[in-house]
């Protein structure tokens, strides 16, 4: 069948259109779609990478910020003692008075430790707290006349000791009160109440300074061998009371045979033989 030229022209046109459409829809469009998808994926992944890169770039400054925060936190932690040791605290306070010529300790007491908790905004207690203890001491001055009390020691020495206590560690050691009581016999009693504070931290980051005088016990270890109960042999003869009910005695002492100042060895109350 022979096509007319007009038909031939139209067929060629149709082929042309089909070719263009085929190229467009079958080749170029999928390729462009693929390109677009790749571009979108690239944009997304690049954005993620850029964000991550920013994060990675911030690691070093963040590390330095963290280190600075650690230093600042450590500084605050060190401002209070890491723990309370009553024996060390009282011994150190006594040594300060001794250094200021007030070695005559009349009274020492440590009140029960108080814990100061922090309540978080959610109503729970913080894992960190502060503990503090009040140490009361009474020391004596000297009159400057009596043997053992020369030279006279009084107010000036006491205040010097107070200043030493309040300036050595002003954050964790607070002098709560001071007082003087004149005996009207040429010397005075001085009393002081000192509050000592310590952090109780679950995750402490600062190292504990072992040279802190309110923490370190520097006395030699005591020799063991203490007694529970005062044996008769340790009682001063003048203090031994013979007329005393002793459940273990076979013969109880009576008033007639009592000698209040008797030596235990010669007491009227016989000691049963086992």
């Amino acid at each position, binding site marked *: 069948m022979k096509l007319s030229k007009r038909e031939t022209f139209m067929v060629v046109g149709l082929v042309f259109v089909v*070719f263009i459409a085929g190229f467009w829809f079958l*080749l170029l469009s999928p390729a462009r779609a*693929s*390109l677009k998808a790749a571009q979108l994926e690239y944009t997304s992944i690049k954005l993620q990478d850029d964000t991550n890169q920013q*994060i990675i770039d911030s*690691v070093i400054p963040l590390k330095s910020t963290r280190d600075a925060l650690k230093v600042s936190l450590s500084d605050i932690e060190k401002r209070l003692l890491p723990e309370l040791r009553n024996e060390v605290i009282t011994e150190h306070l006594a040594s300060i008075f001794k250094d200021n010529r007030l070695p005559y300790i009349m009274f020492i007491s440590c009140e029960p430790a108080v814990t100061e908790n922090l309540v978080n905004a959610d109503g729970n207690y913080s894992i960190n707290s*502060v503990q503090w203890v009040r140490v009361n001491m009474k020391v004596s001055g000297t009159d400057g006349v009596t043997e053992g009390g020369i030279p006279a020691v009084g107010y000036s020495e006491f205040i010097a000791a107070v200043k030493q206590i309040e300036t050595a560690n002003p954050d964790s050691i*607070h002098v709560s009160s001071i*007082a003087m009581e004149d005996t*009207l016999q040429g010397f005075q009693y001085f009393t002081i109440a000192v509050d000592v504070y310590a952090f109780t931290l679950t995750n402490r980051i600062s190292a504990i300074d072992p040279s802190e005088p309110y923490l370190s016990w520097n006395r030699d270890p005591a020799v063991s061998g203490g007694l529970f109960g005062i044996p008769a042999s340790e009682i001063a003869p003048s203090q031994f009371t013979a007329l005393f009910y002793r459940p273990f005695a076979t013969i109880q002492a009576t008033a007639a045979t009592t000698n209040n100042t008797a030596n235990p060895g010669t007491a009227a109350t016989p000691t049963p033989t086992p």
Partner: protein
Amino acid sequence: MASKKNFESSKRDMNFFSEFTSSSGQMGSYVSFILLVLFGLLILGGAIFAVVFIQTAAIKKDISTINTKMQSESYQAELLSYSDINNNMALLNQQSYDVSALFSRVENMGKIDSKYMDAIYDNVPKDIVVTDFTYNLGTITLKGKAESYYSPMDMIANFTAAKLFTHVNIEDITLVNISGTGLTQEELTLAKKYTFTITCSLKSSYPVTVSKFIDSAIATPLTAVKSQTLGVGEQYSESGINTFTAEDGSLYSLNRVIINDTVVPEADMALIRQNDSISGIVASSVEINLYYILTNGGK
């Protein structure tokens, strides 16, 4: 007239097609031309396709490179390191708040200042003997003996001149009957016959603390507590409070303020925001809690 024009136009078209039928040689050159155009288009299409294909391949290669980089151990380790540091920072911030809040409480616990005793010592007149004193909780009580009733008053006048205390109270100035004390006549002459008790009040001071939190149910602290002790009547001020930039770059803006458990009303908040500061006069303990909300996402 219009129908004549249409007829002439149709006639012209027929003449145009008749040119194709009449000249096969001319037709052949048209087909060649069309084939040439088709070939050109094929080349062009191929080139476009090739460009698109190459672009796609290049982008996919870039994606693969980035993916490889993002999945590398060092990359992941650095991201993990950031996460660890961030978590660590959160813990440190909480610890820092706890420790500073506890320390500010300790800092504001009552304690004596021996400088007041020094000042008293320097202002005690010569004819007075202080026999007892107590210094506790902002009050110093002095007991002693004096030769005359005005000696303790001289002492108080000295204290007033030195501006040592906010108030000095005379508890008593008493002439003591010492006739029955067994003193000799000479001793009676020299004895200080008056006793006195005076109470000196020190200027009160109170703590002012400023804390910053994220405004949420758990109120995560943003910084350590800032604390200072100021005397009654002194002014406290905290500026630069409208925004807060966290360590990771997150920007927070002030949402509300609570002072001593009372929410600051919106009218006062506007003034605080306008001045970018909060201030007042100390009359008692002041606890300022600033609550912030996140303005940008940070990292």
